[in-house]
């Protein structure tokens, strides 16, 4: 039962983490370069633009669910399993989701990077 809870938690963490990352990336691209905006209009305008973006709130909600799923998983499984497993699966999921939903140019270099990092994270748990 412990393993089942742990892996269900990991699956929840990965799913909501991917949704959160993709929607946050989209929201930030809509807002624009935060540094350039802050230099030009000040921090108040930057905050207003972020908080007037509806995609940002979808991202925060997904990340919040992912965060509480992580707490749930950590209370059942070892951090050496939960952390790397969730992280490495999230890397792969994000590469697919970014290509599909954000139309990012995920070339061979980026696929290699995602796979190497995911593999490396999995090995660190060993």
């Amino acid at each position, binding site marked *: 039962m412990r393993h089942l809870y742990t892996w269900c938690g990991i699956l929840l963490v990965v799913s909501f983490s991917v949704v959160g990352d993709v929607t*946050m990336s989209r929201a930030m691209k809509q*807002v*624009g370069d935060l540094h350039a905006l802050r230099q030009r209009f000040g921090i108040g305008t930057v905050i207003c633009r972020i908080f007037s973006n509806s*995609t940002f709130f979808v991202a925060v909600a997904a990340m919040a669910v992912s965060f509480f799923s992580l707490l749930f998983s950590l209370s059942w499984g070892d951090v050496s399993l939960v952390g790397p497993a969730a992280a490495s699966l999230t890397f792969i999921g994000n590469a697919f989701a970014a290509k599909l939903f954000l139309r990012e140019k995920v070339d061979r270099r980026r696929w290699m*990077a995602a796979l190497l990092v995911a593999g490396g994270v999995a090995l660190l748990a060993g």
Partner: protein
Amino acid sequence: MTFRKYLVLAGVTVFAAAGDSMLSHGMKQVGNISVHNIGSLFLAVSNPWVAIGILLLLAFFASYMNALSWADLTYVLPASSLGYVLLALVARFALHEQVSPLRWAGIALISGGVGFVAGGPSLTHHQDPGAPSGSAHSNGVGAGPRNQQQVRVATGGKP
């Protein structure tokens, strides 16, 4: 890539690693949380280690949002994964823990992955940068004139 951008990526790396460590320590003190008593998950926030972990993760969140405003998701995530390497090096040289050959191999893979992505461009240039359409989230949120104006503002008025 400017020094400031590398600094933002370093912030993503360090704050995430430190925040996760604090959370892990705190949740081990809180103990197991049953699905039948899911409300106790919210009470876990009152643990000081969990609270510090959350503060560090807020700093991570700010750095992460900043990085995503000028770089692709598939660039930011691998580039900021050096935190795992950082944790392993701290464990080996500061805490004098034994790091197995398998973990050194993991560190080598992550470093290789970071090297791969760091050598490439940080942002995909779309013809219409405000509208990455064909997505499940493209219900006109990013394609409107307001967004195009924001893009112009962010690029210093250039279309």
